[in-house]
């Protein structure tokens, strides 16, 4: 079970959270102007990297705030947490390696 550092509550067990999938998928400002393929891309297609992944988590059994997490999908090492709307940290050697 992961130990997730909620930016507001500190380290908590994974069971208190729900994962919201890939982060930084911004809803298009003008959906009407998008092709069906572009819309389908926004709706359904997500990256599935082996390694560094930026994803959204919700502290659903705690403060109920959403935030972003930088996690390595193989090692599960969490290398950064940052608030919604903030830019992701630069990919570092350690975050890529997962250590």
């Amino acid at each position, binding site marked *: 079970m992961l*130990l997730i550092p909620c930016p507001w509550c500190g380290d908590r067990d994974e069971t208190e959270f729900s994962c*919201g999938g890939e982060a930084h998928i911004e809803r298009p400002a003008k959906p009407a102007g998008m092709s*069906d393929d572009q819309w389908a891309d926004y709706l359904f297609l997500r990256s599935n990297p082996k390694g560094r992944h930026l994803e959204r988590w919700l502290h659903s059994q705690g403060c109920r705030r959403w935030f972003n997490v930088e996690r390595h999908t193989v*090692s599960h090492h969490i290398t950064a947490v940052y608030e919604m709307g903030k830019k992701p940290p630069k990919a570092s050697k350690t975050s890529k390696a997962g250590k």
Partner: protein
Amino acid sequence: MTAQDFRIATGGRIDRDQSLRFTFNGKPYTGYAGDSLASALLANGVMMVGRGFKYHRPRGIFSAGAEEPNALIQLAGGAHSEPNLRATQIELYDGLEAASVNCWPSLEFDISSINSLISRVLPSGFYYKTFMWPARLWMTYEHIIRHAAGLGRAPESADPDRYDHRHAHCDVLVAGGGPAGLAAALVAGRAGARVILADEQNEMGGALLGDSVDEKIGGKPAMAWVEAARAELAGLEDVRLLPRATVFGYYDHNHLGIAERVTDHLGPAAPATLPRQRLWKVRANQVVLATGAHERPLVFADNDRPGVMLASAARTYVNRYAVMPGSRAVIVTNNDSAYAVAIDLADVGVAVAAIVDLRLSPTGPLVERVREIGIELLTGWAVVDTHGGHRVEAVDVGQLDDTGQAIVGDVRRIDCDLVCVSGGWSPAVHLMSQSRGSVRFDDERACIVPDKSFQEERSAGACNGAFSLAECLSQGFRSGVEAAKRAGFAKANAPKMPSVAKVETTPLRALWRIPGVGDKARNNKHFVDLQNDVTAADLALAMREGYHSVEHAKRYTTTGMGTDQGKTSNVNALAIIAEITGVEANAVGTTTFRPPYTPVGYGALAGRNAGKLFDPVRMTAMHQLHNQAGAVFEDVGQWKRPYYYPQAGETMAEAVNRECLAVRSSLGIMDATTLGKIDIQGPDACEFLNRVYTNAWDKLAVGRCRYGLMLGDDGMVFDDGVTSHMGDNHYLMTTTTGGAAGVMAWLEEWSQTEWPKLEVYFTSVTTHWAVAAIQGPRARDLLSELCSDIDLERDDFPFMSWREGTVAGIPARVFRVSFSGELAYEINVAASYGAALWQALMTSGAKYDITPYGTEALHVLRAEKGFIVVGHDTDGTVTPGDLGMDWIVSKKKIDFIGKRALSRPDTIRADRKQLVGLLTEDPYEVLPEGSQIVGEVRPEPPMPMIGFVCSSYWSAVLDRSIAMALLVSGHSRHGETVTISLDGRTVNATVTKPVFYDEEGEIIRG
């Protein structure tokens, strides 16, 4: 009752003053406090305790610990019964009842042992190969196999015992309380770290518990050092000692599971105040693994007979339990450790017939000592066969050639009733591997050792391949320092190393398959995995058939897949695979170690989350009144909702018909408390609603209500409900009962992640309000009696509006909304007034024959009106258009969640499944929900399916059945006849609009 003929008169860690009675397979015996079930059985001369899994050959007690493959026990009877426990780990208590598993009809006479004679037809991959035979035959074989296979039996009634869960945090978790673990815990504990030391045995000491009393640490008996260490740790405030606690799982981010057997060892005498077991979920900053090592068997012909036992186990039975595991022993070894066993056995009067050492010329003090005692030493020899039935009676020994691949000269027979085997030691790297650390095969020590750590852990002592006591202590101290320092205790340091005798040893001789002679040369009685009956020949067959990957070989032969997870077999199996395929053992790799280290009962895993505490039960403020009215309840999510209120002698159908007719003709009352309610406030509340609902909200005046449909961004209906404008920047949203939490989360997600600049706040107020809905032609009459401060005239308080006032003297919000199609008011009061409101309405409504109705009548009434229930008439693939609800989808709004998807080619297809009504030709035919509508009737399935029935009821007011269905191109089929396929027959129905009652809505607005 039998005497304990094999009990040694003195010594051991047992209490001879406390005699304990127990039964095994119905026969009574006695043992002493401090015994394990295995040691007590051995004290009574019982060696054979089970049968092999596949061939049902007799099997005996093989080990003295967690690695036991044979002695699986069904403990206790009735609801307390627990299958597949290891006799070696069951502490004896008075009144204990134990039985063998997998024997039928009895241990001594087992009908399936015929399998042993037909083992040629039970090769590895038997199941897979059998599946390839004609499928019809499998059913016959399966019946026979199922009877013979399997281990213990699950208890048939609910577990009456109590189990607890505890969550804990610590700086350093030490797994294992042998010398290495104690040393690590001492160092970390003295430095002030919060330490948890967990050990699976009933006392600390690990392997020292079974060692000779001559073992010394710092010049004193080793167990005195153990006791001093334990006492010091127990006195440290931040150290927690957990005996009888197995660290069974090592998970991500240093999260570990510990199963503590709190009162198992007390049996029926356990105090009711304590749980039977306690599951610890520990988050550790640092971990020290000191889990020891398991001795390995040697793979020779007929090495599975009862009486063949791990050498170290024999020593443990002698030293710890004061039991002679036999009267005449032969020791078979490839290393020095079994020499100490021979010495200790001889010491208590067991005749040691010979030491058969695979090595050519072992030297060292232990070898010298054995020669002094006068035990015959056969070096460069091996056991090539064993004899006996229910217990070994003799072994055949022969001299190995230089390669170890063949026997030279004559074979010699030695009588014995005990064969102590030692094939070297396998570090218990299970937890280290579970933590995703890598392991490697060490050729010099011929075993798997930890390689690189992945998490914050380190291994110390035997589990790290360090088998001497001196190394265990020094690695323990060093690991304790390292762990404490990493956890922030900078001043942690190791004490002066106590003096420990150093013993010179001769390296072991790895010989993975000991040659057999004659028909035993086929290796098909060379058992590798005793629990799953896998032989060296089975492994060879798997290699011949191409299962070279160790993971494939494991699954094909099932080696290492028993409840023991191959603790005594894995290394032998992998080395044999390496030998057969001609690659290095390290290149073969290992199979994955998975939790749990030893089986953990479901009771412990479930803890208190069982029965009534499994899931919360939510009840409304009026629940007791429904109970008194005789309501039958239905679970809706966690809520208990009245389903219907049967009167004396009424069937469910009769009750529901009566309730429905009461609403249509006079007055009904329903508890609507459970509908989700979300209070929405903020300057951008209206804009937010515009974005999450398909319709527009700008023009909704304060005091008015509006129905809204919520979509996902894929355009599919997600929830619906009525939202009311409560005041400036203030709305109250209602959701479906089941969707309340999901809608709340949905709103919060969009607010926080996509539209953080909109200032809007959400509060779940579902349980703040109790809601009584009065429905029917007399609703206004009743309300006017109880409410004087709201103008109830039709034009002053029209349909889809709300007013604040008092009802029966209680402050209330009254909403004129209706899910039944009747004139209706939903009266909301503070939850604590719910029962008072209900009682007042019932009392004053008596003259109108006010009738409480439940969820079934609610469904009938709404279906008569064609109102959908999300999740009943929709399934996540249904758009507003499919429901014929385009009227609620704004054309003017530039955007809302789901809008773009509604113009995708797939969502505008004309042949989508669309909501229709169905009227069966026979009005008394009520279609089962879920029935398939077929495009063409054929004599046999499959038939093309063009839709299905989603809602179907008997309508009392219409005196016929009604149904709603999702039907391909349904909107253009009104008037057509379709066919519904039922079990063995078909039914015709006419497609209609999905509304059957008051289509114009005159009544609802009345």
